[in-house]
């Protein structure tokens, strides 16, 4: 087993042991499914456009980014706060083993707890959520993982990023929307001509490439941060 795999196993266990966080994410995810069912069985049933509007708003704008923040920023952030990063950092392993293993663990938790329920909600509402939700999760996990290593208050900064950048600036115009992860993820969910309250219209290639590039940049930053970290 490689060191990245060992870190993955350790971090996955650690993230899943935080019962409070897991419970919050499960409730939010189950709520998406419940609302999808209610929309589906309500009078006349929701159209796919209505369903996409709900899932882009609730799924891609709220629970996925904020849930990814809670998981990914705390992956390293918790170890720093608890002053237990030392036990990993002292080991003779490459920085990328630590960051890739941790990114994999955070992504796995986000996928299991949030992406899969959103895909299920999408199936109920005839909205193809898989690609968009998965790519958004990859991008957010990459960014927030780096926050957890590089910033002293990763949750606060992440929260500001999501509220100000992703939601306010991203909603100002089609041009500023290009700067948000959400618009690329939503473009994979929404069909042409649908109005879901979020600027979309990114090309398929851009919708794939930009979140992956953001995730790669986040992972590189985290790896750089691991090497430079002053560990308490």
């Amino acid at each position, binding site marked *: *087993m490689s*060191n990245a795999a*060992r*870190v993955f196993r*350790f971090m996955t*266990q*650690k993230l899943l*042991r935080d019962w409070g966080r897991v419970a919050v994410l499960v409730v939010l995810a189950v709520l998406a499914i419940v609302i999808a069912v209610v929309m589906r069985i309500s009078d006349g049933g929701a159209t796919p456009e209505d369903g996409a509007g709900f899932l882009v708003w609730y799924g891609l704008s709220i629970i996925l980014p904020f849930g990814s923040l809670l998981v990914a920023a705390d992956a390293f952030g918790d170890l720093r706060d*608890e*002053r*237990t990063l*030392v*036990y*990993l*950092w*002292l*080991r*003779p*392993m*490459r920085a990328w083993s630590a960051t890739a293993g941790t990114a994999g663990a955070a992504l796995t938790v986000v996928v299991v707890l949030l992406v899969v329920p959103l895909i299920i909600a999408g199936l109920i509402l005839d909205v193809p959520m898989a690609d968009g939700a998965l790519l958004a999760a990859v991008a957010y996990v990459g960014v927030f993982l780096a926050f957890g290593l590089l910033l002293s208050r990763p949750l606060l900064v992440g929260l500001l990023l999501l509220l100000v950048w992703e939601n306010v600036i991203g909603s100002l115009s089609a041009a500023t929307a290009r700067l948000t992860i959400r618009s690329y993820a939503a473009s994979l969910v929404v069909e042409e001509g649908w109005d879901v309250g979020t600027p979309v219209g990114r090309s398929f290639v851009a919708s794939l490439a930009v979140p992956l590039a953001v995730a790669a940049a986040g992972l590189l930053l985290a790896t750089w941060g691991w090497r430079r970290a*002053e*560990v*308490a």
Partner: protein
Amino acid sequence: MLEVTRVSKRFGDLVAVSDVSFQLGSGVTALLGPNGAGKSTMLRMLSGLAAPSEGTVRVLGGDPRADIELRRRIGLVPQQESLYEHLRVREFVQLAAELSGVADAAAATERAIGTVGLDPADKRRLSTYSKGMRQRAKLASAIVTGPDVLFLDEPLTGLDPNQRNLMIDLFHRIGASGRCVLVSSHVLDEVQRLGTDVLVMGQGRLLAEGDFRRIRDLMDDRPSRFRIATDEPRALAAGLIDQGLAVGVEIHEPGALTVATVSAGRFAAAIAPLARDRRASLQELRPLDADLESVFRYLLEGR
């Protein structure tokens, strides 16, 4: 094995370590100083966890911060109590062994846990462990790789007297096997039992290094104090003053006097002939301030 050259560490305006240089070989050395002296920062730099602001740190000939492979040969018991609370002791120690590439990590884990007196089969999670058990779990994690250099930051905190004895014996065994063991503490009694080699830090500076008894001898600007039990304290006191061997004499109990001298060597050579001349029997001659506490107090407080 360790070479620290003009190392300083600043955190903004705060100078945690200032212009410290020393070299250490194998054996046990105590890093002594009050809280806030810079001991933990020094150990963090030695183990590569923090980069010096100035100066160089070499451990086993390499840079512990840049050389990842070197970390395999360095063990650290950090000061903080926190552990991976969701793990059992075996999982915690084995994680360290596996990430360090230890051959047969399971067997090494069992040995390390047994060495510190814990039970490798203990099913309880670390979150249930007492302070002393946590210290031992950290130590097991540090020694599981068989490091050539072992840094221990206040490792005896929270241990009961029996456990302390066991740990101190273990440090001596590791040191005697040709490895370098540097143990920080602010408790003088602990340090005295760790041996005689000390590094004394205060306010970020290295105040003294070496055998603390030699350090005491070098403090020739400060009188050494001796207690002499004799049947003729007044006669002996007068003789010491006459011969210029004492800068101060106190007789505060019948049959004993306390002497302060700035030339301990001359005093020791002259006291027996002087007693014979003055027809005084010497019943006891005992240094009062050759212990570590006196050295420490003097270095830190100048008294």
